[in-house]
């Protein structure tokens, strides 16, 4: 368990969430795919999952000194399974939002209008994206505050 790695993963995850929000905001009127085919942009969302990388799992299995009954110290390899519950975060995938219905805008002059004159616009609501952006930046600030607290703890320990 390394607090700097855990909080670093939190900051990276929130940064990626902000990137996804930016992508949604940039493509708010995108009606085509990059290759030019008629496929409107679908709103993207990040999916988070807890994460403990191999190095940290090995660290939780690191040997430790234990005092035996006769007073000597024994170096014992330990598997501290409950330590593995302290996890960082990873972005599992950037999923498309298939629940929110796409917006249909009446604009017969648009090159991508269908026979009735409706254009299928992306299912992106600016207000929802701004709320996500604020939430991501607040979570980022919370991670930075936690990092500063950990740094202050370490500096205090060095004064012993």
């Amino acid at each position, binding site marked *: 368990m390394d607090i700097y790695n855990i909080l670093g993963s939190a900051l990276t995850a929130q940064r990626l969430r902000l990137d996804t929000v930016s992508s949604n905001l940039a493509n708010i009127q995108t009606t085509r795919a990059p290759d030019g085919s008629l496929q409107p942009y679908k709103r993207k969302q990040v999916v988070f999952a807890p994460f403990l990388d191999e190095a940290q799992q090995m660290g939780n299995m690191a040997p430790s000194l234990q005092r035996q009954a006769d007073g000597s*110290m024994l170096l014992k390899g330990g598997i501290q399974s409950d330590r593995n519950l302290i996890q960082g975060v990873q972005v599992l995938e950037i999923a498309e939002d298939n629940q929110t219905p796409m917006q249909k805008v009446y604009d017969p002059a648009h090159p991508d209008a269908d026979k009735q004159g409706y254009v299928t616009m992306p299912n992106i609501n600016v207000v929802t994206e701004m709320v996500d952006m604020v939430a991501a930046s607040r979570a980022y600030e919370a991670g930075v505050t936690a990092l500063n607290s950990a740094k202050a703890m370490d500096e205090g320990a060095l004064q012993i």
Partner: protein
Amino acid sequence: MQIDSAALNLINRFPDVTGSIAINTTAQNPGAVLGQFSDFLTEQLSNTSQLQQTSEQNIQAFASGADIPLHQVMIGMEQAGTAMDLMMQVRNKLVGAYQELSRMQF
């Protein structure tokens, strides 16, 4: 760094001060692998320099535009600084112990 090598030599000349743990464990349990304090110190020194090298590589990569998040660069710098501070405190304690030993009068 001259004082550090002098302190390390001192530790090697007085093994019993810190080697009693190793004697107990190796005599009663051959499976124990606790070495001398000097080995531990050398390993920590190499860890510290490794952290500083990593931090410097991160800074250079970020300055040249690689895809490294800024917070990762800052965290690397912070870890290198903390390791350096810890090494300075260990050095202070070692020098203090050396001075206390040299003050002994026979």
